[in-house]
């Protein structure tokens, strides 16, 4: 009797556990299909549903929020899709959201994706219809792919011709690829460029260091670099130097002409500089003038002692003495 009771208890546990398992599974499946929760109905119109079926998932920004409840044909070009969404989605889903039909993975079931859009719009209520757009179907994709394939075939044919020409050594690209000298030149150029670049980098560093060392407030260079007025003055000076240099050039050109003329035996200067006899003549003339001057001084001395001119010379001496005394007083 006791064993029978134990068996009954065990049987009861067995039956209850099995039933609970079944109920849990049914509840979970029903819950997923929104059978046991409050829902709102949202509609959308499509021109093509791409194999969408009743019970397929509806997603909002990637989250499962409901299932497809009904698919009806409204006209020859329009299909009506009714979706059952969880009630709380009414607090988030706006009327300007867009429904599209997509695939859950590459080989997955069809799903409806509801994509939220920016902008102010009222929240959806049960029975509302939201906008939709039908995505490119597989047929359209295959058509595009076919056109792409054809283009690819043409491109590859052209590419074959080009590669054949390159292999034959025709054209610039072939020269670039096959000419060793050119390659070496390019290498050398690149090497030089690298060296130049290193030098420039060093110079830049040095200039930078030098500039850092300059006392911008007190040194001349600092004033020149920083003071715009001084800079303007320096500019003017440089300009003036330039003008002066131009004038010097003109003067030197004139001098050059003069010197050329002198060299070409034209004018008095040529005789002065180039004719030795003329120089000797001048020397003898100067000797004669010296002698003449000495004799003239003797004559003048004789005149000062003559009766007729003695008064005049004394007068001059007196005036000179007066001027000297006046200067001493001042």
């Amino acid at each position, binding site marked *: 009797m006791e064993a029978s009771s134990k*068996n009954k208890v065990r*049987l009861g546990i067995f*039956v209850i*556990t*099995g039933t609970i*398992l079944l109920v849990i599974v*049914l509840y979970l*499946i029903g819950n997923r299909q929104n059978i046991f929760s409050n829902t709102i109905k949202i509609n959308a119109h499509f021109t093509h549903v791409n194999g969408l079926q009743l019970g397929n998932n509806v997603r909002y920004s990637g989250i499962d929020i409901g299932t497809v409840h009904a698919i009806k044909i409204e006209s020859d070009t329009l299909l009506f899709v009714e979706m059952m969404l969880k009630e709380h989605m009414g607090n988030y889903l706006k009327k300007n959201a867009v429904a599209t039909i997509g695939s859950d993975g590459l080989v997955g079931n069809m799903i409806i994706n509801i994509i939220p859009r920016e902008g102010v719009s009222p929240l959806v209520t049960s029975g509302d219809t939201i906008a939709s757009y039908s995505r490119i179907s597989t047929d359209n994709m295959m058509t595009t792919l076919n056109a792409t394939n054809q283009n690819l075939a043409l491109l590859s044919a052209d590419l074959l011709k080009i590669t054949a020409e390159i292999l034959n050594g025709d054209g610039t690209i072939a020269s670039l690829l096959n000419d060793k000298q050119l390659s070496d030149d390019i290498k050398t150029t690149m090497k030089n460029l690298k060296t130049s670049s290193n030098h420039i980098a060093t110079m830049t560093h040095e200039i930078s260091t030098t500039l850092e060392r300059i006392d911008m407030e007190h040194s001349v260079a600092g004033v020149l670099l920083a003071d715009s007025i001084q800079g303007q003055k320096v500019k003017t000076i440089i300009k003036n130097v330039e003008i002066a240099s131009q004038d010097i050039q003109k003067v030197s050109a004139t001098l050059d002409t003069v010197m050329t003329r002198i060299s070409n035996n034209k004018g008095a200067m040529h005789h002065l500089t180039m004719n030795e006899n003329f120089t000797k003549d001048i020397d003898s003339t100067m000797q004669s003038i010296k002698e003449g001057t000495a004799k003239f001084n003797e004559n003048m001395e004789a005149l000062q002692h003559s009766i007729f001119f003695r008064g005049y010379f004394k007068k001059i001496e007196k005036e000179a003495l007066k001027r000297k005394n006046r200067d001493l007083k001042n």
Partner: protein
Amino acid sequence: MSLVNTYPTRLYNFLIEIGDLSHFAIRYFKEVFKGPYETSELIKQCYIIGNRSLFLVGVTGFILGLVFTLQSRPTLLEFGAASWMPSMVSISIVREIGPVVIALICAGKIGSGIGAELGSMRVTEQIDAMEVSGTNPFKYLVVTRITATTLMLPLLVIFGDTIALIGSSLVEYSKGGVSFTLYFNKVIKALSFGDILPATIKTFFFGFVIGLVGCYKGYHCKKGTLGVGEASNIAVVYASMLLFIVDFIAVFISDIFFEI
């Protein structure tokens, strides 16, 4: 000449067998709703058929899920669709493999057990004694056993399916690093009422078939110890064959109502 005579005789015997089995089933339906009810015997049979088979069903289910996942995994990996494993395994096990395999296991264990038990009782004239003593042996022995198998097999299948999915999830966890939560989320996502309900309903018929054939063969056991063994053996063979026929009909009807 004897061969020519043998085939019609076999056909005749087969038709008689079918007729007797049908009559047996009709008698069951007549008796099952009529009092007095043998409740304690029914509970006892439920315990024997249900609880005592749970270990066998559990082990079978676990290995089934384990092996099925291990065998399917390389193919799915080749297609880069390993993430579909929970969906594929759950639908396969819940819809078809689980019910059929567990029913076959039960046909072997329960069907043969009932056949042997009733056959022994027939051989030892216990059934006759019951009839003489005024007890309705059909009600006491047959109705309780058929009802018990009909009620217990769906529960055994539910347990078996669950354990098979646990076995499958263990493989997915160890081989693919898929967590149990993710695995069972995918299972629930993949399953629908169209998978659960027809599969569960058909297991009632599986149970009924196993009980009916076992009881029929045992109840009409031939005299002698050889008859008991034969009853036990044929019960398993017939029950197994009938299971597939019932399964075919069940799938056919499910297809109409649930759009599989």
